[in-house]
């Protein structure tokens, strides 16, 4: 989109209030969605809840292809479609809702940096685990990813996606890592997040920000997803303030919305989200 068109759209976005029928699209919850996509989707849902903006969650098998950038989740608001947390935050800000207005410049810098840390380490580790670890790929990812489609399309699509993800891993230098090293990185990331959170309720003390939503999305998904082994969730469980943080946000923002959100059921027990 050119600069002028973008400005025009932003103005349009600002002009209209948030509609009642805003929808968030993701893949099928029970059969298809994978760890990383679920984490991203949950992060967006948490963010919108924190802004008090109502949104319906709609599950479609071809959500990935509907999305303008190829990534889930995406929201359909009025006549605009925005995907991924970053652009969604900006879009919501254009509508006049923002969680990070009360932060000063240094805090904003830190918030952005920590969001990049989560994207860089946690999300990449999730992608690695589900697409580069052979056991997980064979037993979980391939069956789930292609489940809505008939054979041989399901196999073709999942191999295509796997090839794409592995190329990307190679480009960023993660292809040579072993699973232990990846788990080590996850541990380092959780350690950093735990240090930053300390004993505060949220990362920037009193009010949640998009960083809290993002961290919640990823950590909650990791904690409540059953994989081949428990190593990933064990790494997160080592940090009690992070688990307490997840519990707190779930209680505050997701308790009343059992149907729509995916943060249902017992907090610490495993849900067979990915089998």
């Amino acid at each position, binding site marked *: *989109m*050119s*600069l002028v068109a*973008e400005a025009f759209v932003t103005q349009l976005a600002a002009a209209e209030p948030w509609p009642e029928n805003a929808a968030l699209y993701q893949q099928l919850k029970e059969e298809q969605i994978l760890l990383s996509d679920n984490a991203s989707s949950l992060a967006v849902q948490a963010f919108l809840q924190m802004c008090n903006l109502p949104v319906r969650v709609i599950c479609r098998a071809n959500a990935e292809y509907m999305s303008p950038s190829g990534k889930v989740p995406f929201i359909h608001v009025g006549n605009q479609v925005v995907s991924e947390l970053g652009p969604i935050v900006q879009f919501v800000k254009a509508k006049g809702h923002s969680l990070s207005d009360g932060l000063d*410049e*240094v805090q*904003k*810098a*830190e918030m*952005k*940096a*920590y969001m*990049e*840390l989560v*994207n*860089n*380490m946690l999300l990449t580790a999730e992608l690695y685990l589900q697409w580069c670890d052979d056991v997980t790929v064979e037993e979980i990812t391939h069956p789930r990813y292609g489940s809505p489609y008939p054979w041989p399309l399901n196999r073709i699509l999942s191999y295509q996606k796997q090839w794409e993800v592995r*190329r*990307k891993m*190679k*480009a*960023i230098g993660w292809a040579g890592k072993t699973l232990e090293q990846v788990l080590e990185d996850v541990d*380092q*990331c959780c*350690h*950093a*997040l735990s*240090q*930053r959170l*300390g004993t505060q309720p949220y990362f920037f003390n009193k009010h949640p920000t998009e960083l809290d939503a993002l961290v919640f999305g990823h950590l909650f998904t990791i904690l409540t997803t059953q994989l081949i082994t428990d190593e990933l969730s064990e790494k997160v469980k080592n940090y009690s303030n992070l688990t307490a943080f997840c519990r707190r946000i779930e209680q505050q923002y997701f308790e009343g919305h059992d149907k729509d959100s995916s943060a249902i059921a017992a907090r610490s027990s495993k849900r067979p989200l990915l089998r």
Partner: protein
Amino acid sequence: MGGWGHIPPRCRDSRRRGDRCLPPSRGERRAVPTERPGRRRRRLRSLRGGGRAGMRCSVVLSPTNIALVPASRRRGLRRWDRPGADPTPRPPGGRRGTEPRAPGGTHRPPGSAGTPRDRARRTYARFTGAPLKVHRVTSPWRSPSGHLPALRTRDEGIISKPQQIITHLRKQKYNADYDLSATQSADTLAFVSLLEEKLLPVLIHTFWVDAKNYVEHTRKWYAETIPFPLNFFLPNAMHKRHLERLQLIWGDDYMEDEEKLEKELYREARECLTLLSQRLGSQKFFFGDSPASLDALVFSRLAPLLKAKLPNGKLQQHLKSLQNLCNYCTSILSLYFPWDGGDPLTGVPRAAGTDGSEAEEDPHKRRKQLLSVLVGLVAMLGYAFLSGIVSIQRGSVGPAGRQPITLEEEEEEEEE
């Protein structure tokens, strides 16, 4: 064998102090009879370089780093320096290392000055005062592991991966992050991620993929200092590799959508720079008064961007508008890389201002000229022999050569 052991004490001490070193007097020179004259000349030239250059620190640096070093200082940093002949190197500024000897040698790759990662490592080593011997090589084939950079250690062999090198330094108790609190360490990790995600791809694009910059600046820069025959294909290979990497990260057709590229990606990079500037504020380093690994990384990313003369420098302009980041870079340059100070990248290879630099260039140029003349001669002679124009026969001197002349005479006679 002649070598540093024979240097009179006066010279060694002044070298340690970093002063310009006078060449030994005539009498002293003659006291070293075993040296070949050529070698002595070279050694004297390197002594004249004085200070750090005479120290013959042997970290393997890139040819571009050689370009960074002002010509007057480049003596002594020659490819054929024998690493074993080094006296105890003085640890650079910052905290002094406790070990008197280097734990190993570091080989840096050609083009590593353009590679921020290697600069980051070198900067980190300087901050911690780790005594390193830096070997400058101009081709990856000369590195012990085949890849550059490479750290050769006494205990653990050869380490090539960037993060492993820093981990190794930390294990040897050269840790720049020792004084950081837990929150600050967490912040370091976060800002490192920010840099890697937002700034580094755009930097790679600016230096290596952006057509104007690549052709007019980067490729020339590397091709000038990498030796024949690598200078023909190594820059192009690096260009392709970087382009491929960016295409994987940003999508295959990112090059085509110029506006999206300019708007989104450069905007994010500019935002990243602004965030760094806000975080730095008016402090000297990111975490107080002494540098940490984050400072090494930020410096290594920003310094080339600041100093290089890029034809297409949008990001550079934005960086220059952030005054505190510029001051930050220049202060680190002057504190920890004093011989690089000022404006090292203003076409130094071309600026043969001093006589010393010309004398410095001469052996290279002479050698190349000589080589090319020799090759030409050998080729001509070989062809002459093979095709029978010239043949050596005992007794008759150049009979074939005489024949054309006699033929001509006959022709003339006939014409007449």
